[in-house]
């Protein structure tokens, strides 16, 4: 079952990646990146059990943390850029 789950997660990662390529809006990309990050956390956890050394779950925890920080950072940046667009329309 672990093998099946690993393969499923790999497939899901590939699908999320293609959504990140296609877009079309920036929110699609963020959503895809978020999904991708969660799947990475799960993959690390499952692979740890699959290879028989599950004590490295600290890494999965870091992934979860970094994923959250990344999403928050992206959203804040978009807010800055929107603010920019409103205050100076001739910016670009």
């Amino acid at each position, binding site marked *: 079952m672990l093998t099946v789950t690993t393969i499923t997660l790999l497939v899901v990662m590939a699908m999320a990646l293609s959504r990140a390529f296609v877009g*079309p*809006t920036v929110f699609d990309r963020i959503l895809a990146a978020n*999904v991708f990050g969660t799947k990475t956390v799960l993959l690390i956890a499952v692979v740890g059990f699959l290879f028989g050394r599950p004590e490295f779950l600290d890494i999965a925890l870091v992934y979860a943390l970094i994923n959250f920080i990344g999403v928050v950072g992206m959203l804040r940046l978009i807010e800055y850029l929107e603010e920019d667009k409103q205050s100076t329309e001739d910016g670009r």
Partner: protein
Amino acid sequence: MSPLEIISAVLLAIGSFLVLSGAIGLLRFPDVYSRMHAAGITDTLGAVAILLGLMFLAGWTLVLAKLIMILLFLLLTGPTASHTLGKAAWKSGLQPLTDGREPAGDSGKGAE
């Protein structure tokens, strides 16, 4: 197979199914909000199912504690991220697709 392994296998199967269905939704749904709906819900529930499945494999060890910590963390951050994302998309003026006949995928173009 011991009963614990069977429970874990069932949970892993449920988790895999949820995760996969969420990804299909992410790929196939027509606009940002419906994609968010597909991904946001299955993301958290699928993660919970898979991590629970792993917990039954881990037994009473430090690994179990770490799995619980990951689970708590995902339960806190996953819905928060989805909520914030939806809010940001709404605030940026992106309209949800209400008419099913528009071509898929291009609905959000105007807001970028």
